[in-house]
């Protein structure tokens, strides 16, 4: 892991080892629930989530890219760590997603500033290393630009659908793409959000801590506002419906979700031509690639192997399962509705 300075932890709190950080500072989570001075930080954490839920970026106490006062740094980091604890305790996935996204945007701003910082070499080195360590993008400075190997660039740029991100619209030289600090950071925006999200999802959920209940309950209420997904009876299992809804909304369905959806529908006898339009709304839609991938899954592209729909167990590990009682302990979504109650 990177060695982080005081400012860095405040700017990129998700890089810190949360438990270790608390220990180093001589605190336990329980103290925050009882100590009146510390309890205030739980409210700050709640605020931080609320701001994110509203789609805004949390304004930190950092002034001019520097920790303003001695007290500000721990507050910054604590509010982030406590926010994660609250989110875990509430178990609200929609909030975790929104929070990760907003935190990613916040970090993005700092990364960009650090990258562009020519007066402080160490700042810009750190930003370069964050990008390399976390997203395996090898960034190198070249005059006012940053160079990134074309292959690294492509792995990220294909997630954008704006034409300006196509390689043909980039300055390519010596096997590298040349980007401004802003573009460099923009390139990894999605992955930054995913990274923060997975860090939160993978964090252990503590048992309820006295003094945290109120804020947790408020979070549960808050998340109701964003619940758009309701399960109704129908021919498709919840996981498939959920995937269809995401696509309908034009949101990004992860590769594993697309795989599940496509293999499910193919097994149900739908053709590649029927399925392909479903992906039209996806932010990274590309007709040529979609057809290729579907044909590959359907086994019509030469390999002859038709891929089968993953098991419920597998889908659970990929966070794609949204089981209801109707699923009735089936082991594969294809059995949905077939098993006798």
């Amino acid at each position, binding site marked *: 892991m990177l060695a982080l300075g005081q400012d860095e932890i405040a700017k990129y709190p998700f890089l810190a080892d949360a438990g270790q950080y608390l220990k180093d500072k001589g605190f336990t989570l329980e103290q925050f629930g009882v100590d009146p001075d510390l309890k205030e930080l739980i409210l700050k954490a709640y605020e931080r989530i609320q701001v994110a839920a509203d789609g805004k970026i949390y304004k930190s106490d950092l002034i001019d890219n520097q920790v303003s006062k001695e007290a500000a740094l721990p507050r910054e980091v604590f509010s982030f760590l406590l926010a994660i604890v609250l989110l875990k305790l509430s178990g609200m996935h929609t909030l975790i997603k929104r929070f990760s996204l907003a935190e990613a945007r916040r970090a993005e701003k700092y990364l960009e500033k650090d990258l562009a910082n020519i007066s402080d070499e160490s700042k810009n080195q750190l930003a370069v290393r964050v990008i390399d360590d976390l997203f395996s993008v090898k960034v190198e400075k070249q005059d006012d630009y940053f160079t990134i*190997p*074309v*292959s690294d660039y*492509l*792995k990220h*740029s*294909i997630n954008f659908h704006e*034409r*300006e991100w*196509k*390689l*043909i*619209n*980039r*300055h*390519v*030289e*010596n*096997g590298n793409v040349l980007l401004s600090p802003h573009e460099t950071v923009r390139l990894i925006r999605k992955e930054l959000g995913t990274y923060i999200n997975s860090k939160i999802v993978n964090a252990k959920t503590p048992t309820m801590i006295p003094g945290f209940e109120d804020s947790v309950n408020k979070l549960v209420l808050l998340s109701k506002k964003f619940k758009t997904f309701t399960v109704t009876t129908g021919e498709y299992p919840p996981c498939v419906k959920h995937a269809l809804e995401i696509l309908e909304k034009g949101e990004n369905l992860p590769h594993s979700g697309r795989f599940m959806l496509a293999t499910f529908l193919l097994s149900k006898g739908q053709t590649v031509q029927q399925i392909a339009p479903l992906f039209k709304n996806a932010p*990274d839609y*590309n007709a*040529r*690639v979609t057809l*290729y*991938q579907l044909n*590959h899954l359907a*086994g019509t*592209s*030469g*390999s*002859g*192997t038709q*891929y089968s729909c993953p098991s419920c167990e597998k889908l659970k590990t990929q966070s794609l399962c949204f089981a209801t009682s109707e699923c009735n302990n089936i082991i594969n979504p294809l059995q949905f509705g077939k098993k006798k109650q």
Partner: protein
Amino acid sequence: MNENNLKFLEESFKKYYFEHSELILVPERSSEREFGFQKFNSGMTRHISIKDDKELHLLCMQNTPSDVYCSNAYYTFPNLPMNEKDWKEADLIFDIDAKDLNLSCRENHTISICNDCNEISKNHVKCLKCNSIKLEKKSLPCKNCINSSKIEVTKLSEILINDFKINKENIHVYFSGNEGFHVYVYNSQFQQIGSRERSDLVDYIMFNGAIPETFGMKKFKPNRSSFPDFGKSGWQERFSKQIFGSKSKRSKIISELLANGYSSFQKTLDDLSNSIGVKIDPNVTMDIHRIFRMPGSINSKSGLTKIFCKDLSKFDPYNDASYIADDSVEVIANCPMEFKLKNKKFGPYTNEKITIPRFAAVYMICKKLATLA
């Protein structure tokens, strides 16, 4: 194709595989690749793993395949079914085919064979004899086809070397055995990218999807200073060469471009795709699970060998890729076009019985333009 002709081809191919084993070598890291082959008049056998040249020769001798294939991908378990193979990486591959180049010469040497009555004609819509629309196009590529394909290969290599900094030694060019070339790129930074990434790489090489802003034209308040200039790299340089021609004309042409406006500029860019974009088959490059014709194997569409081109400019497929024996055979040929093989001219023939060397007979039978007498 009737039994006799198949037998004849099989026997001719077998002889080739027996006598030219020095040409049929497994690629590097052979045990990580998937192999496959096809026999005359039967389906594809895939998911085979082959560890060395000896095993490959044995396969060719035992099965007398019409075609032999090998993956550009590397797998942990190449012989397992596709979803269990565990894909690791894949060499970059490009397919350049004369039939995709919109060449005007094509109609002079492309004919249609009716699948229902075997009538041969130059009408590509329907059979003039029986009205069937089940036509199969056959072409005997001419010198222009080959030279035009070579130009595309050269354009491609230039981009690979200049823009992507790929080592010249890692670019291998093969004659496809029929109407074009296959370009392989080994050990590049692109080994591990997937098909979506490869698809965008293809668009770069083909000059697809360029927007006016990239080449200096803005929608609002466009200015002269942002247009490409000479002495730059990549497409900026190639754009300058193509659009301005020379430094002295640059200023005048920029004025014209500005006067014509934004959408006209977009049109200019779209047209550039046809002129300076490299004409590769996008589906081949983005396919990371495909098996490709093996270098050194015979292409059953022509009887010619897919072979490494040491010196592309001097390469002549009709001399350098024909390895079939030259004993005399009798065939009935119905080949309305003239062609040249191993420095000998053949054709045109109209349903006539002729005695010709085996290599010419194999070529015409593969093209369905002759049958054994």
